[in-house]
Structure formats: structure tokens, C-alpha cells
């Protein structure tokens, strides 16, 4: 069964859409990914059970679409430094190499499937030496006692411990969203306004940045700050707007079960 999409710019099978975008018959900007996803989910709900083939194919095409759209949404060459330009080319080459590689192995997989089904038409002789050779073949159970067998069974059948990846050696930064929030509430009221960069306190690690960003969002959700941004991609300014500071800091979601973002 093929999944069809109905959009303003395109109406037809989903997989064909990708092809048309590839040959620039359909403009990827005009394609609403969210509409496609919604339609697909609605389609899935109609099915009695999940069709894994269909779902996989959808995910693959949808992911490729997202990839395409991201690529095309990247700023034009005018805005880019030479280095960025080069890295863009590299990213593209890398992606192309990946696609070619995937296609190559999926072709090879077809070949293996063909070989296997051909080979399955022959059955191997497996009957082994007949009873006339019993005296020649050694008794493999000669040294095996019921006790040995039992001990082996006990070992093999024992519940095996669930393998756990030891993470003890990974350094964990102990920055939590709750702590960061606490910190921001200490700084922001007196400052009035600050950029996100300033709020990171000079620590530009990814963990610190993410924790600060989430904490700022949390404050926004609680209507304690406002945002200001002069234009797209310019620096984000956070403005303290709350009157009181005594009704917060409860139920802060750390966005992480273990409270630490560091391990990510």
C-alpha cells in the first residue's frame, strides 16, 4: 500500500514527491512537512495494525525531505565566510557519499536475498555416518556425568545479568536546570536585562548553554521574563518583568531523569 499526500502544490504518491523535488518540479519550500506528517498519522490510525514497511518507508522519505529542506534553508552564499562555504560543500559531499553508500548496500542486500533463495532450492545431505561406523566414532559422553550436565545447565540457564554499560568513567557536569534557574533568579532582577551569552557567565560549554536556555524558557513559561530580539539570528535579550520572586522554584523540571545534563 502506498501513502498518498494531498497538498496545494502536489497531489499523489508520497515517494514520487521526493523524486519531483529532486528534479525541481516541486519547490520544497512549498511543501508543508507538518501537513504530511499529520496526514500520515491519520492514515496510520485507520490501519488495524502498524504496517512496519510503510512506516519505515515513510520515515526514510520524511527524513530525506527534512534534510533537503534544511539544506535549502541554509543562508545563501553571500552571507557565508569562505570557510563556511567550504564546510557547506563538505557537508553536502558527505551527505551525498552517505546516500550513495546506503544505496549501494541496499542493492547488495538484494543480491544476497537472491543468492539465498536460489541456494534454498538445494538441500544438503546431513545424515552422517551410519550405524556400521558406530564402533569407530568415539563416545562423546564418556566423561560426562549427570552432575556435570546439571552444573552446565545451571550455569547456562541462570538468569543472565542484564548487560549495563558502565558510565562511571564519564565525567558528569553537575549543572542542573533547577540550579541554573536559582542562579538566574539571583542575577536577573538586579540586572534588569541581559543577553543569553552573559547569563552563561563566561562558561560557553554546551551543557551550561543548554541548561541556561532551558532555565530561561522556564522563566518565560512562568511569565517572569520577556524576550527581545532585534532581527533573525541576532542576540537574544532577556528582560526581567516579574514583580515578586517568592512563588517560583517549585516543580522545576530538570528535563532529565537523573537531574544531571552532563552525561548527555
Amino acid at each position, binding site marked *: 500500500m502506498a501513502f498518498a499526500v494531498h497538498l496545494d502544490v502536489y497531489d499523489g504518491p508520497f515517494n514520487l514527491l521526493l523524486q519531483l523535488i529532486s528534479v525541481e518540479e516541486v519547490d520544497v519550500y512549498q511543501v508543508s512537512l507538518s501537513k504530511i506528517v499529520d496526514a500520515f498519522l491519520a492514515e496510520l490510525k485507520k490501519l488495524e495494525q502498524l504496517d512496519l514497511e510503510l512506516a519505515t518507508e515513510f520515515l526514510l522519505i520524511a527524513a530525506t525531505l527534512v534534510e533537503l529542506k534544511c539544506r535549502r534553508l541554509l543562508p545563501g552564499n553571500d552571507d557565508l565566510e569562505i570557510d563556511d562555504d567550504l564546510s557547506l560543500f563538505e557537508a553536502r559531499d558527505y551527505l551525498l557519499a552517505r546516500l550513495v553508500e546506503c544505496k549501494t548496500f541496499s542493492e547488495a542486500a538484494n543480491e544476497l536475498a537472491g543468492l539465498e533463495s536460489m541456494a534454498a532450492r538445494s538441500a544438503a545431505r546431513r545424515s552422517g555416518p551410519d550405524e556400521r*561406523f558406530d564402533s569407530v*566414532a568415539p563416545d562423546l559422553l564418556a566423561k560426562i556425568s549427570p*552432575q556435570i*550436565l*546439571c552444573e552446565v545447565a545451571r550455569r547456562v*540457564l541462570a538468569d543472565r545479568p542484564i548487560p549495563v554499560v558502565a558510565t562511571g568513567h564519564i565525567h558528569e557536569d553537575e549543572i542542573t536546570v533547577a540550579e541554573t534557574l536559582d542562579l538566574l533568579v539571583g542575577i536577573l532582577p538586579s540586572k534588569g536585562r541581559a543577553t543569553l551569552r552573559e547569563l552563561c557567565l563566561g562558561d560557553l560549554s554546551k551543557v551550561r548553554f543548554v541548561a541556561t536556555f532551558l532555565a530561561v524558557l522556564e522563566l518565560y513559561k512562568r511569565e517572569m521574563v520577556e524576550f527581545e530580539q532585534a532581527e533573525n539570528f541576532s542576540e537574544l535579550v532577556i528582560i526581567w518583568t516579574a514583580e515578586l520572586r517568592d512563588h517560583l522554584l517549585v516543580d522545576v523540571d530538570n528535563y532529565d531523569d537523573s537531574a544531571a545534563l552532563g552525561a548527555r
Partner: protein
Amino acid sequence: MSPLPSEWRPEAAAIEAVVMVATEPVSSQLLSELLEVSVERIEELCAVMSQAYEEEERGFELAHIAGGYRFQSHPAYHGYVERFILDEVPSRLSPAALETLAIVAYKQPISRAQIAQIRGVNADGVIRLLTQRGYVEMVGRDEGPGQAILFGTSQTFLERLGLESIGNLPPLETFVPDVSTVELLEQALRPGPEV
């Protein structure tokens, strides 16, 4: 030169194919059903084929044994076969084979897939060895889809281990190995010439 009339070839070939892959002698009754010809016809075909192999001085023969037909090595080449068995057939069970035998003994009836799941790796080769040596045998088929073959231990297995019935195996739960058993176990598991 074979005395088999060439127009008999297709039927003879079908018999050859079936008997070649069967692990037990195949009865003429069964062959007759498969080929959709009479039992007499099967017996006539097999007799002529068997004579032809003999005349062609093949290394194998079509033997009529235990109410059925099977391919077996020709007695004239027993020397080669015996040397092959001595060279190739291991003198003791590998750890993998011992583990599989233990699983079958305690979890029978059990399918290939279930054994593979417990061991974490495919066990086909090992099961084949155990079946071929007569320690393990097919005891039924799973009722579920696919009708997987179910394996269990054989009479030979019980005899070799000196057990009256499978119920006489030491229970899994309470067994604590004594020192001498641990030693024996280590010996049994020590790498050596094996499968």
C-alpha cells in the same frame, strides 16, 4: 554403462534427490506417494538404480534397510570413511555442544530457536552433531506457526549417562557441585581436540 533406461531418468532423479537429503531410510510407500507412481514401480526403479551404481563402481550404494532406501558409503571404501571419521569427528564434546546438550536435557521438548535464544548464538551445527550421534532426537513439532521441530534427549543418552529416566537428572535448583565434580567439569570444558 548404466542399465537404467534413459526414459526412467526423471523418476530415478527424483528418488535420488529425496533419498540424498533424508536422514532416515525412506520407505517405498512414501516414495510412491511423492512420485505418484505405484510401490512396485518404486521398487523396480530402486533395484535397477542400485544395480547401476554397483556396475558404475560408485563409492556409494543405494541400500534397502529397515523398510526403506538410503544412500550409504560402499563397503569397498570403508577404509577411507573410517579414517575420515577418526580425523574429523571429535573425540569429545565442545563446550558449545555440552551446553546445548544440557539445555536440551533440562528444557525438553525445545526448538532450535529457543536453544539459540538461551545460548545467544545459532546452534544448528551443534544440534546436528548431537542428533547425528544419537544423543538428541526429534520428539515432536511445535503446534504454533512454523511447526518448529522439538528436540529431546534419546534412550542412548540415558544409557550413556547411566540414567533410568530423565527425571533422574539432578534437580537444577538445589545442586551444589562438590570439589570433584568441579574438577571433572573443568576437565570437560578444557580446550582440546574437539568439535
